[in-house]
């Protein structure tokens, strides 16, 4: 059972999801009723200047609320009473969504969190000579802009197959409050 004593200021909870794909966006569109085709059809998204489908603005929000519902044992141990987000960055197929909730305050039975949801977007992997050995959707469709580079969002790191280039961007800052039963 999740209880108040399980939380302390500064404590972090992290969730990663790396299965964002077109099938999932289609499922979300059908279930939510948000059937704008820029989320499900590449040709329409391209006509809108987006280079490919983008996730629904509130799609990634569900991973934040699910994190708290799981934390609260499907709300049997308490309730998520507030959650707010700003939508700053588009989420794409192939992105890894990293949701971090940090305890900012414990007030009675309420626990307050700061939320930071980031997208990690792989672009390509190059060998030591600079040849591309693997290209990801972001590389193929040109999702990374000069602005991203200028803002210092594009990074590299060594992986088994070579040097991975990726973008790390804040998609959704926010906050949440849960109220525990005990």
């Amino acid at each position, binding site marked *: 059972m999740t209880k108040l004593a399980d939380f302390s200021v500064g404590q972090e909870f992290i969730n990663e999801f790396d299965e964002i794909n077109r099938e999932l966006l289609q499922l979300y569109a059908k279930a*939510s009723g*948000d059937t704008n085709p820029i989320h499900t059809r590449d040709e329409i998204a391209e006509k809108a200047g987006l280079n490919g489908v983008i996730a*629904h603005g509130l799609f990634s*929000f*569900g991973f934040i609320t699910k994190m708290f*519902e799981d934390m609260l044992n499907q709300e049997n141990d308490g309730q998520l*009473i507030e959650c*707010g987000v*700003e*939508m700053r960055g588009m989420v794409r197929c192939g992105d890894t969504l990293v949701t971090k909730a940090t305890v900012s305050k414990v007030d009675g039975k309420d626990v307050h969190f700061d939320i930071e949801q980031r997208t990690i977007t792989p672009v390509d992997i190059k060998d030591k000579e600079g040849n591309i050995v693997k290209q990801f959707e972001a590389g193929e469709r040109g999702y990374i802009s000069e602005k991203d580079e200028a803002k210092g969002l594009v990074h590299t790191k060594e992986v088994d197959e070579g040097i991975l280039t990726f973008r790390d961007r804040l998609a959704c800052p926010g906050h949440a409050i849960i109220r525990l039963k005990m």
Partner: protein
Amino acid sequence: MIKNFEFLKENLPGTDIPGKARVKCRYRDLSKFAKVYGFEDPKYVGSKEDGIVACKAWANAITVKSFYILIPATKLTQNGEERPFLLNPNKLLHAGNQYNWEGCVPMKDGDKIISRGKWGKMWLNKDNMILFAELLLTAKNENDETVVKVTTQAAVRPGGY
């Protein structure tokens, strides 16, 4: 644009938005929606006979419908002529949401939700001339019980207001 913004800021905040948005909570949609996020608990994805409730993120379905129904419903008279709040719907963006469930009952299979709204704060980012406006939504079920309160933020790019 600044004159239009000032006109809207003077006339809209605090006023009711005409109309309402309706969302039916169907078993099929609630369970599919929960499965998108990997819920396996019968509370959210169990059988229709046993009954299920909506996961918290289902509130998005209400917000999105309210956003696109209620915002275009607002009309005003400016310089003697009727105009909609939104001059060009293609300039509308959804910038943020704050959900509050305190004292609310869960949404469940079979619920018929009705959402109504008021205009909240309005401001202009003079760097990019994007107008921001808050909509304060209250969604209730058919028993008049509140299921969620939402402050949703609309961003309207230049040419849209």
